[in-house]
């Protein structure tokens, strides 16, 4: 087995071209290998010391560029992300434990491609793109085309995800990500839903996007949602999510229960996103404020 610790992007890309697999935090790759999911690749290139991958910055159009090596901890505590791309902060704040969040990265979460990944649904509702680089250049792909199945992406073996690009937020927008969880740490999403809502000046929903976690082979976006009153849109999201989900039965839940709960998560995500869009502050992660895993003494 060989391990190269890259300190520049070029070194990393050269290693990939030579057949190495990237390892960022290792919280999927190494833990999976220990559990017999897949053996560790024979050749690895560590990318966690490449500084350029670890930055968060505004893009010229007011959007955000998050380096692939940025940790969940950075995302959950970044004030810009918390204020404007709240759903992503909601998601990163739920990952594993403090240890997992300090080591695990956004790029690793996205490229690992699990249908239960928490950052996936928020990225979809933001219309995010992944920037993939290789020795022969770079390209940007829409999240929906990045994931092609459980654990599979459309990236070529020599492509590294270097950043996630988030478009600028429209005025009067808010977002939220919720997941169903049975305990408050070290949990994997049973189901989850992200919503991004833009309100009209009089407080109705102008536009809405909803995406779902752990109810299909990849993260899926709910289709057919239109504007209307917050209550109507939330109810429509609940019905559409339950309808469009194709959940499985496994140890964590039956398909029936998942189908019901994905509707609940979608409705609550829309409601919380609308509250945030109207200027209300709901602490990160929103899960603690709206029922699931609620803190002692929190308001219902």
């Amino acid at each position: 087995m060989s391990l190269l610790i890259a300190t520049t992007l070029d070194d990393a890309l050269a290693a990939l071209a030579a057949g190495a697999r990237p390892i960022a935090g290792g919280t999927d790759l190494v833990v999976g290998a220990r559990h017999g999911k897949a053996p560790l690749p024979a050749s690895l290139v560590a990318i966690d010391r490449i500084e350029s991958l670890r930055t968060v910055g505004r893009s010229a159009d007011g959007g955000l560029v998050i380096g692939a090596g940025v940790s969940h901890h950075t995302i959950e505590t970044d004030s810009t992300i918390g204020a404007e791309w709240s759903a992503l902060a909601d998601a990163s704040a739920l990952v594993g434990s403090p240890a997992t969040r300090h080591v695990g990265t956004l790029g690793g979460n996205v490229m690992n491609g699990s249908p239960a990944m928490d950052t996936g649904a928020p990225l979809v509702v933001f219309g995010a793109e992944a920037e993939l680089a290789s020795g022969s250049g770079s390209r940007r792909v829409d999240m929906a085309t990045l994931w092609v199945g459980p654990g599979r992406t459309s990236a070529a073996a020599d492509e590294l995800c270097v950043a996630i690009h988030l478009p600028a937020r429209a005025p009067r927008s808010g977002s939220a990500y919720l997941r169903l969880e049975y305990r408050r740490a070290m949990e994997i999403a049973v189901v989850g839903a992200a919503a991004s809502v833009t309100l009209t000046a009089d407080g109705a929903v102008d536009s809405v996007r909803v995406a779902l976690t752990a109810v299909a082979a990849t993260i899926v976006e709910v289709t057919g949602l239109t504007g209307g009153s917050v209550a109507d849109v939330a109810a429509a999201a609940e019905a559409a999510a339950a309808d469009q989900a194709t959940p499985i039965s496994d140890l964590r839940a039956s398909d029936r229960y998942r189908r019901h709960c994905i509707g609940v998560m979608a409705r609550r995500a829309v409601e919380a996103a609308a509250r945030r869009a109207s200027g209300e502050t709901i602490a990160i992660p929103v899960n603690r404020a709206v029922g699931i895993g609620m803190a002692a003494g929190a308001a219902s």
Partner: protein
Amino acid sequence: MTVTEPHPARPAPRFVRADGPDKVTGSGRYTADLSLTGVLAAKFRYADVSHARITRLDVSAARAMPGVMSVLTAADVPDVRFGPFVQDRTLFATDVVRFEGEIIAAVAATTAEIAQRAADAIVVEFEPLPVVTDLEASLATDAPLVHGDWADYGSAEVVVRDRNDASFSSITKGDAAAAMAGADVVVSSRYVADGCHAAPIEPRAVLAQWEGDKVTIWTSTQVPFDARAGVCETLKLPANRVRIIVPHLGGGFGGKCGFHYEAHIAALARAAKRPVRLVFSRREEFLAPDRRREGMIIDITTGMRTDGTIIARSGWIAIDNGAYTADAGFFSQLAAMHVAGPYRVPNVSIEAHLVYTNHQPSGSVRAPTAPQACWALESHTDELAKAVGLEPVAFRKLNAVDTGAEGPSGQTYDEIGLQQCIDAATANAGYGQELPDDEAIGVAIGWWPSFSVPSGAYVKIDGDGSGQIITGAQECGTGAVMTLRQLAADELGMAAEDFQLVYQDTSVAPYDMGATGSQTLFNNGRAVVNAAGQIAEQLRKLAADHLEASPDDIVLADGHASVAGTPTATVSIAELAGIASGGELLIGHGSGQPPGPPPLVGSTCVGDLGMAAFVAPQFSCHAVRVKLDRDTGVARVLAVSTAHDSGTIINELGALGQVEGGVLMGIGQALTEGTTYDDQGKQRNAAMLEYKLQTCADAPPINTHFVQIATPDAGPRGAKGLAEAPNVATAAAISNALAAIIGRPVRRLPMTAERVWETLNEEAAR
């Protein structure tokens, strides 16, 4: 009878445990940390099927692999069937395998990877046998037998067995059928609990080394003397050639009681002529040991008068024994007692069956049978209260036992604090306050015996005045052994810090039953007090000579021996120790007579394994505030209030830790833990990812009150046990909170979000 007065005026002391710094700084050593020159790694080959006849077993390929130093099967060890209640077990599978974690062969090799490859290379062929997983079906007369030769097995004389029923027990008092027929209100309920796991943080490890014909085994056991007895029995060795040493133990929760892999590893080391070490993976920790918490089916019927007075109770209990009986023989009687409950019930008829299945064997996990039985009984009790229109706490106050009352098995209690526990726990929980309609406070009461057994210790004081306690007791994390320093110190007028503990070595200390049955402080405390008392006597004589006074007038306090009433006539204990080192040494040995069982009047018990009479019974009440997300069924415990009568509290800090840990374990059993099986009896969630323990982030605030009253025939200073009692009532209280919110109980344990949601939907559909 001896009545020991507690010290009501003195607040319970709070001291930091002696092994704490080692453990939190990482300087403490656990079994898996140890190594020896030339040590080999062990791996087991498991059955991986739940019930089958072995038609071919070929280890030749494994034996021939380079680096493999020994491979053992049943053919290589003495042909011994063992088991504390029913001798139904062998070290290695002989003819038939009865659960997936049964060991077929063991391998020792130069590395763990080679050992694993060799274990995989062993050829085993099976002829499948019918798999028994359903408790009721297993009891049917035409059910396939888990042990075809059950009738030929040896067993403890009192164990009542019949085919797949490995231990039947009943409690009969009065005439339950007649009383039930005459009752004004009768309520029947069925509750079904899944099995679950102890899940200690340290997976099991064993390291064995032979020198000549003597073997030393370092092992992560809760019961070193029991482990020694198992090695001696199965490998046919005398006790004085087997030495068991337990380094720090990384938790056990009962899961590490009993004799497990010490003999396998000792046999491998003997065959390989090198030390051998076994370290379990987390998956093995889930699948292989005969110590998981038992699944149960519980039927209860109670007859009452219209005023809510209970006049009769009948019950039927089936307990999943799994494939082998391990230490579960007494579970049927213990479960029957917990379904009877700490109530005044004049007419009782309860039957309990310990049922063989092709599941992993059950064994003592923290308060075996009690959390499930208490969950069923106390959920049923709230149904009773509702049926007669009484408020649940008032119903319990009316029917629960109290000082001088007769319990369900015919035991009349001396001074006990159950009623005080109910008052304190509910008051501290703010029971009765207005709550949002998705919240409720559920209340449950529980009990648990103290175990009175033999135990021994030595105490010595060396020439410099420093002391050592050499005890057979085992510290499994509860802190019970840590309190021994305080007991010795108080006896001798010294400070706890003046003593070091020498423990967990069977060749150094006298016998103790181990960290099981909440018995350590109760029995070993008595031994240490006795041993220290002998030294106190020696010191008084030495001081009397030195100070020219009568030994009766010597007071030992603050590290000095002084003449009562003449504080200037004083000598330090260190100085007396120096004098003693030139003459008769300061050595004490203690054991003391364990208190006998209290009498039972008017009841008969079939399959009586000594659990119908509770020595120094402990009582508890838990009041738990729960919030339910009605849309998803996810319940969250907001706050827990407990009150415990465990007699005198010797170290409040340690005692609070026990209660808090027990409560958290109870929340896990109530809501998120629980083993699920496939239709072949194999565990589906044998991993931490899918077996959901509670985390620190889930821990609610826990308020604890100790009801400390004089306890006859208890342990030192009137202390009872405390390790298991806090685990009894939490799940039951959570159940009652959920039932109060939903309007009916969730009849399956764990009460997972999905099961709660299903219960909510049934309600909506009605």
